[in-house]
């Protein structure tokens, strides 16, 4: 379950535009106009007590209530905690598996059907099984998120291993590098670019699945709060939480994208 990568904006003539365009997130801010206008119109023409579409100001009130009630921040913390652990585990496991599968054709073909099956199966289907096997625990949450988010990392790493530049290995031989040094100075850096790309694509997946699990199981987190407000027919809170989750996701993806571009600044502009 993967989301497409960011839309690349038009390449500006200025150097700053070009650098930002390289990172692929130059989009004119004017484009936010429809959203802003939409919200403004809603605020003006909406009412506070509409059952289904209360105005944005009510959302803010509800969120503040949740914060005061002491449920908002712990939930956010729980979601972020699970998210971070999942990404770290997914990176490590995905990276290692990707290296193994990419390096050995035999292992790749042997494990392919099994891996493909897990890749094709939607994470939402795995949640009931996870609950049955591991209960309503952080382990279950992390496990399923990892299984869902691992694929971009694994596949990207595998591709990097397959397309590994053989001349670099020759260079390693010529300089008589020991295997640990070979791995450290040549293989790992070459592969880490791919891993970072995988993390960038996998982060949104991790967010979705974490929230999904929280909604489905009620384990502490933003998703659980969201499900709860829906069950209480609190539409203002539902909208408010929706927006809040969206903003957190946006910031998180931006952060991951920034980290990726930081570590790939040695690459020429795409």
């Amino acid at each position: 379950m993967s989301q497409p990568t960011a839309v690349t904006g038009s390449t500006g003539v200025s150097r700053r535009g070009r650098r930002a365009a390289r990172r692929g997130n130059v989009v004119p801010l004017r484009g936010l106009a429809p959203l802003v206008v939409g919200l403004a119109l809603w605020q003006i023409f909406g009412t506070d007590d509409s059952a289904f579409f209360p105005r944005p100001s009510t959302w803010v009130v509800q969120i503040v209530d949740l914060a005061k009630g002491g449920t908002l921040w712990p939930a956010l913390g729980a979601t972020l905690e699970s998210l971070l652990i999942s990404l770290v585990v997914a990176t490590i496991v995905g990276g290692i598996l990707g290296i193994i599968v990419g390096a050995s054709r035999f292992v790749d073909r042997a494990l392919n059907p099994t891996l493909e099956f897990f890749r094709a199966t939607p994470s939402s289907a795995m949640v009931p099984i996870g609950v049955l096997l591991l209960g309503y625990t952080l382990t279950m949450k992390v496990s399923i998120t990892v299984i869902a988010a691992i694929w971009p990392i694994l596949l990207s790493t595998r591709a990097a291993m397959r397309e590994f530049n053989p001349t670099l290995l020759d260079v390693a031989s010529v300089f008589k590098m020991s295997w640990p040094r070979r791995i450290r100075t040549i293989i790992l850096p070459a592969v880490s670019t791919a891993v970072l790309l995988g993390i960038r694509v996998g982060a949104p997946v991790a967010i979705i699945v974490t929230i999904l699990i929280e909604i489905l199981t009620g384990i502490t987190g933003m998703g659980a709060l969201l499900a709860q407000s829906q069950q209480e027919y609190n539409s203002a809170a539902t909208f408010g939480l929706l927006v809040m989750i969206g903003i957190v996701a946006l910031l998180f993806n931006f952060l991951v994208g920034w980290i990726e571009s930081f570590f790939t600044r040695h690459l020429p502009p795409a």
Partner: protein
Amino acid sequence: MPQRPELTAVGDLAFSCRSLSVEVSTKSGPKRLLAPLDFSVKKGEILSIIGTSGAGKTTLLRVLGGLVPPMPDSEVLAAGVPIQGPPDRVLMVFQDYASSLLPWRTIRKNVALGLETQYHGEELRDRVDAALDLVGLKARGDEYPWRLSGGMQQRVQIARALAMEPAVLLMDEPFGALDAITKSSLQDELLKVHEQTGATIIFITHDVEEAVYLGDRVLALGGVPGKIIEVLDVDLPRPRSQIMTKEMPEFLRLRHRAYESVVEAELRLRTDQ
């Protein structure tokens, strides 16, 4: 074609090969890449290798570089010691310079690749700077490889090898992909380096003129599997000059002879097929 017997003492030899042959196993059975070769390379000389396509020049270089094992009945000695893996103080410069540089390291750190296990801090920096100076790239040291032109990237690769103060430099078509002006300036830089360091240089080239211009001897390989078809002694005076040397009658004679042997071998190859 007769092969000249080598009359130098063992201690003066950078390499000594007897019955060197290389075979590789393929889907359709074993394929011989090099017919048994006998030759040796003196220390401090520049040996140019030319030849028809498919004659095994790169394979030969890789054998000397310890990257390809020869057949068991071959004897290949580097400075008197049988080769098992990359020999000491023998460094190879690859044809595909872009792929041989680590793209995630700056130029400086690329040049430091071979040195960093042994030297650190100030001393490492000085050695890296010295190597970059030899090829004239000290100013661009903190940039990433993608920003440099092809010729500069090749110079970085050479600097990286030189930083190790090698006894032998093996180069596979080092200037093949460069334009004429860059090529001639790099050729002269190589000669300068040779003069300063006294290293043995063995390089492959498709440019017969380059082979004669740079080399002390020219080795011509031909046929499939490759055999030595000619060994030319280049008795031109040093230091060489792009303009003066190339106008000398001896240069022209050698060039003529080298072309002839390669062309003859090429024709024979085509008619045999």
